[in-house]
């Protein structure tokens, strides 16, 4: 059996999305900046796609800028807010300790440029509170950037309330919604979101395409300079096929969001319950306020990479916050941020489901994973020490 359970890493493109792309590759291949029909048709298609994205986010088309993906959107959002802050002499930013690297590395860069960043604690449950944000706001705060849902542990932040706090204090609020878009209902206006990043390949759209929403009145700084595409805010010939694919995928997934969510959450809960039956295992992130498809569990005494490799042998595609998978030596900053000690953080497993996963697959996962965990524990000197009472369990 083959089970793809790494939908947070990337997803399979939907048929509809592919079919939305194809005509723009071979027939309607015109450059939207061109005057002639072939170009103008592409330009019109682009407008339609922009409307689709806007409609699904609850904003206007002019507030959407197409980018090459989530990382670029995050980078441009932060760069733009920082430029605005700089002009006003406000150089303080509020974020969290467990943002995606596209945000964190950009924040590091801004720190070098003289910005001060407050990284809010996300607690053991992986959630920041609006109160924390409010308490951290200073007169010189120019930006609050808090992700909508975490990519590793799936916890959903109280974005609407954080947005309200930011609005009250006149601070720009950006949210990296790469993991949330298509999976949670989002309305940027109702939630007082000023900027939002999304990436199509996380919801069955194409790779290499994303969007940045920026509320009217928030000037964007170009990350990529050149031609006047995207109202001068993002140079480069527009990736029309991918944009069409993104719009189609967004429409498709939005139409079924509730239904998908119900189905996926049920599978997720079965999986969580089943895996937590493994002794000395613990769920990472709040049990309820989490993405419909996210399961993230630490197993004491084993290491993540070897777990993944053995699962792969069984046809299961999953991921881990283990350092060994990434080639760096520190385990996931997300797991450390929620207070997991290093030795436990190494033994994490993330399974992320989508609407095409089935009950049979969950059964298969629940048969294979406990076996593999047990096998790896049988090889593990750490597990032996724990069993023999030479060390204390971290996870009871």
């Amino acid at each position, binding site marked *: 059996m083959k089970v793809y359970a790494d939908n947070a890493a990337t997803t399979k493109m939907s048929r509809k999305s592919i079919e939305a792309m194809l005509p723009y590759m071979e027939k309607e291949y015109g450059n939207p900046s061109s005057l002639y029909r072939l170009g103008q048709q592409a330009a019109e298609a682009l407008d339609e796609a922009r409307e689709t994205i806007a409609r699904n986010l609850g904003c206007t088309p002019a507030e959407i800028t197409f980018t090459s993906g989530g990382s670029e959107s995050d980078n441009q959002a932060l760069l733009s807010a920082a430029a605005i802050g700089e002009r006003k002499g406000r150089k303080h930013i509020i974020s969290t300790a467990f943002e995606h690297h596209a945000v964190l590395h950009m924040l590091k860069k801004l720190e070098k440029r003289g910005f001060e960043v407050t990284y809010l604690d996300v607690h053991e449950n992986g959630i920041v509170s609006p109160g924390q944000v409010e308490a951290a706001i200073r007169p010189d705060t120019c930006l609050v950037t808090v992700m909508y849902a975490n990519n590793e542990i799936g916890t959903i932040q109280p974005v609407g309330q954080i947005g309200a706090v930011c609005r009250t204090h006149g601070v720009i609020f950006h949210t990296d919604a790469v993991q949330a878009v298509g999976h949670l209902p989002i309305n940027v206006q109702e939630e007082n979101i000023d900027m939002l990043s999304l990436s199509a390949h996380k919801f069955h759209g194409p790779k290499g395409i994303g969007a940045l929403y920026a509320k009217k009145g928030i000037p964007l700084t170009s990350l990529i300079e050149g031609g006047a595409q995207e109202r001068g805010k993002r140079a480069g010939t527009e990736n029309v096929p991918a944009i069409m694919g993104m719009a189609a995928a967004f429409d498709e997934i939005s139409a079924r969001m509730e239904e998908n969510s119900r189905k996926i959450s049920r599978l997720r809960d079965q999986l969580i319950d089943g895996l937590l039956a493994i002794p000395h295992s613990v769920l990472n992130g709040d049990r309820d306020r989490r993405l419909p498809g996210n399961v993230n569990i630490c197993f004491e005494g084993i*290491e993540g*990479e*070897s777990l993944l490799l053995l699962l792969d042998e069984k046809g299961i595609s999953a991921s881990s916050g283990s350092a060994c*998978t990434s080639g760096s*030596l520190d385990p996931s900053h997300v797991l450390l941020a929620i207070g997991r000690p*290093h030795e436990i953080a190494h033994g994490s497993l993330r399974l992320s489901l989508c609407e095409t996963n089935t009950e049979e697959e969950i059964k298969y996962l629940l048969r294979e994973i406990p076996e593999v965990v047990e096998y790896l524990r049988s*090889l*593990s*000197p750490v597990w*032996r020490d724990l069993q023999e009472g030479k060390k204390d369990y971290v996870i009871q």
Partner: protein
Amino acid sequence: MLYSKKVMDHFTHPRNVGVIENPDGVGEVGNAKCGDIMRIYLKIDHDTISDVKFETFGCGSAIASSSMATEMIKGKPLSEALELTNKAVAEALDGLPAHKMHCSVLAEEAIKAAIQNYYEKNGIAYDAGQFPDCESCSHCASCDKSGN
């Protein structure tokens, strides 16, 4: 693929896994904090490794390196086992990705530590220079070398 066929073979079917009751030497290196611990148990007869077992907490490359290294020293005189290098282990595995070479270093060091333990337990004089000390281990930046 990240790993060679050989690595995957040793990873999925590790040789010499387990413990030896009343071993003549035990060596443990690494640190759970850093994501890898290797423990080697030796049975020694007349300066020859008559049996060897390992336990490893670590990645695929760490487990495969342990397995391969134990195969390479089993039945060998201690002098030969002491000469086993991590490069030889990696080569025997048809290579390791660059960022995984340190896992093979752990295997080399675990064996040395087990032999050192044997010498010490039996009051056999040895050249300390042949053995790595914990202080010189630098495979992880964040390690406090406290051993836990």
